[in-house]
């Protein structure tokens, strides 16, 4: 008897809720600066990424990045120790600027990961995510 091994089914990003036609997010709070690439990212068939090295050099700041998927989360025993894996980009640390802000970014990143929702995010000068739109 042949056993059929179920193939792994790749989850598709959830449909994005409709926004009002012509909504210009840059014109309302919070502002979204121009310059993002707007390239649609997909969930890549990749091996689970390895946790980031905490002493690695800070990556190049990229400003605003649009429409990316967060596929993995990682945290260590620090109140501001959460990193997220951005598909096609790599590990990004959530900014530790404040504990509550860090928690809020984590909440949004968790939702985005759980529900396969694309995100827009902004990196600070050290390459850490300091603004997140889901």
């Amino acid at each position, binding site marked *: 008897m042949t056993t059929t091994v179920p193939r792994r089914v790749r989850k598709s990003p959830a449909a994005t809720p409709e926004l009002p*036609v012509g909504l210009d997010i840059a014109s309302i709070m919070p502002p979204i600066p121009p310059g993002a690439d707007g390239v649609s990212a997909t969930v890549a068939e990749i091996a689970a990424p390895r946790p980031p090295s905490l002493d690695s050099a800070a990556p190049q700041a990229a400003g605003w990045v649009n429409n990316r998927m967060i596929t993995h989360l990682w945290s260590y025993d620090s109140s501001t120790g959460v990193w997220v894996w951005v598909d096609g980009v790599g590990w990004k640390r959530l900014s530790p600027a404040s504990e509550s802000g860090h928690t809020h970014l984590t909440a949004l990143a968790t*939702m985005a990961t759980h529900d396969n929702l694309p995100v827009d995010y902004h990196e600070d000068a050290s390459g850490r995510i300091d603004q997140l*739109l889901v």
Partner: protein
Amino acid sequence: MSPDRPHTSEVAAVRETLSQQGHPWQAAETRMSRLSAEWRAARLGVPAPSAAEIAAREGQPEAMAAAAQSADIALPAKFDLRDVGGRTYVTGVRDQGGCGSCVAFGTVAAMESTAAFTRSAPGLSLDLSEAHLFHVHAKARGYTCGSGSWPDDLFADTAAIGVTFEDYFPYNDAGTGAPNADWPNRLAKSVDVTDLTANPAAIKAHISTYGAVATCFVVYDDFFHYRSGVYRHTTSSVAGGHCVALIGWDDAAGCWIGKNSWGTGWGDGGYFRIAYGDSFIEDYPEPRPTVFGVKSVTIKAWLPAQRALRLFATANDANGWAYLQNFGWAHLAGGPATTTNKLAELTHARASGHLVTPYINGTELSTVLVAD
């Protein structure tokens, strides 16, 4: 002709005049046509201009029309708040009934439009209480249904006191009833009331940037029978003064697009088009200013259940935002812990599609109810 339908000959006379002029607009029997002269006048709530004031404005209509046509070239040649990218930022046509409360209706129409347009939220569907504005605020100034009122006074009240929602004080033309005692907690206020009198370019810029504008104009006797087309008065017989909301313009037709408060049985479903300059619509024959808009409208109220379409947070303390489907962006009020709690509820709502019932205070999301 039936003796109880004296307006029939009146409408026929207007049609005859229009025919001689090549049918610039269409006249028909409207719900206003069927009213007596006395009841028509009751719906004109701006004190009538004096003959001397009108005489002193000779040449004004031509000057205003020229100014409207030569307005900033950056403005579109045609604009209509009922169709901005396929969405409407104009609330429904109301009926002021037999009371000279038109200024309250024009003012509220401007506020409702601005509240939605400045938030890019056509689903806001704000319905404010003209009764509160007229039967309470205007009355406190000594205005009555018979006296009419002036928009500068009523706009000032919308900024200083605010207007509650229609469900807290439904309108009736008799002025009976009173606002719900909780009205201070269900309130809209005007911000940056702007005088646009005698400046067609500024009127256009305001409509296309912030929303509808309230204006006063002279009503001639033929206006009651307007059905469609671009209105130009065909008689010099003045019935009184009136206030409406301007919601757009059309340079090719040389006209403003207006929203009246005589119900949908008058005009083009309650709307009308009037030639630039006609009837002193950009500058009423009166020394005081008569054209106003507001730059934003703050809201303090529970709003209907809706979806949270986007969430936003930064690394700063207590800086969380939600984009509500029919309101726009709202800041999560309170300190860091409160923001965390709200964000937890909202992430659930955002992900699951559950509706959020928000209590809004300005741009702050004060209280949030998420329910299955």
